[in-house]
């Protein structure tokens, strides 16, 4: 075997060995108990970061690092998401061609309801996220769907999050085995390693919050979605929850799924549920 072909084989074999060794096998059979999960989830983070107030976890990396926190406070004087927020407000109130508007698709005319998304739709038997509900509203009114990852969708969700600022996340799991299954599948997705780098969501956001990954300070998983959508300096623009999930996947060398595929809807359901009680802080800004 020539050297140029031997090197890739050696690297593939090494990757396989790392995959094998990285995961000790001791799975425990247990029942699904979201209330117990949420309590343990919060305890894990408050034990790990005893100086951080529970409600401050929603500020992501800024809650982990004092210097960053000071920079962020100054940034909030002229927040970079402001243009998107203004655009979202204008879009939200502007009627569709048929005379109806987003207000007609949501409870309380869409104001102050962000904390209830995603929810489990018992008719459909699936999780419905805010982004999905917005595009369904558009399509039901004869308008084309927006891209799930940025621009208009980020603007609309920014405005809706802003009207819910400070309200505690309040995700319900109805007494429906399908809802519990969606929650459990979301949890499985969150902890499952994927991509060539063999990372799960938890590798960064449970095992290593506050640590640096290159120049970034990793955010804790607790309350991580409460700040969505976010303006990221790295993106030079706004991004939705869908954008965050898909880019996380590609960064670990995994092929991302399509935005709003069941896996992403379920993981959003799980992560939002375990952050119940923490305030909505979106739209947020991140380095």
């Amino acid at each position: 075997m020539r050297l140029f072909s031997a090197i890739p084989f050696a690297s593939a074999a090494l990757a396989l060995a790392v995959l094998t060794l990285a995961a000790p096998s001791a799975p425990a059979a247990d029942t699904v108990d979201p209330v117990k999960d949420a309590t343990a989830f919060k305890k894990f983070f408050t034990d790990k970061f005893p100086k951080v107030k529970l409600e401050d976890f929603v500020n992501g990396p800024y809650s982990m690092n004092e210097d960053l926190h000071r920079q962020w406070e100054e940034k909030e004087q002229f927040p970079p998401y402001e243009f998107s927020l203004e655009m979202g407000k204008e879009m939200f109130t502007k009627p569709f061609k048929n005379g109806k508007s987003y207000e007609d698709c949501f409870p309380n005319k869409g104001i102050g309801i962000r904390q209830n998304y995603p929810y489990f739709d018992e008719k459909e038997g699936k999780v419905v996220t805010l982004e999905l509900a917005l595009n369904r509203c558009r399509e039901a009114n004869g308008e084309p769907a927006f891209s799930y990852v940025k621009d208009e969708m980020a603007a609309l969700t920014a405005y809706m999050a802003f009207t819910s600022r400070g309200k505690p996340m309040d995700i319900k799991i109805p007494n429906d085995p399908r809802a519990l299954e969606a929650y459990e599948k979301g949890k499985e997705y969150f902890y499952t390693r994927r991509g060539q780098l063999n990372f799960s969501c938890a590798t960064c956001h449970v095992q290593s919050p506050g640590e640096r990954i290159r120049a970034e300070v990793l955010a804790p998983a607790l309350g991580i979605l409460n700040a969505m959508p976010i303006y990221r300096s790295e993106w030079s623009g706004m991004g939705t929850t869908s954008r965050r999930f898909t880019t996380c996947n590609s960064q670990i060398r995994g092929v991302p799924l399509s935005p709003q595929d069941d896996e992403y809807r379920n993981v959003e359901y799980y992560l939002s549920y375990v952050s119940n009680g923490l305030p909505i802080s979106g739209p947020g800004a991140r380095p």
Partner: protein
Amino acid sequence: MNMLKPVVASMLLIAGSVCAFAASEDDYKAAYAAAEAANKEAAALRNQWTTTAATLAAAKKSADAGDFDKAIATAREAEALARASIFQATSEKTRWKDMEIR
């Protein structure tokens, strides 16, 4: 007879090279098909790796340029990557629980 030896050897060498070249292209096609099949299996498990797709593309590029030795080696690397992603997806079906906060 001794004078014929180099001629016979040359003919054998030429015939051998031609056969080896033809075999290389077929080998490449087989290696690429195996890698592609493994990557499809990873897709069914919702766990493709970006590097597998990139390596498959690199294999095709080498084959298009006529470098079948490199194309075969690269296709085999792509297959190894796809198989590793399948192993990962399969083993994580139970191993994710080891990371769970309890």
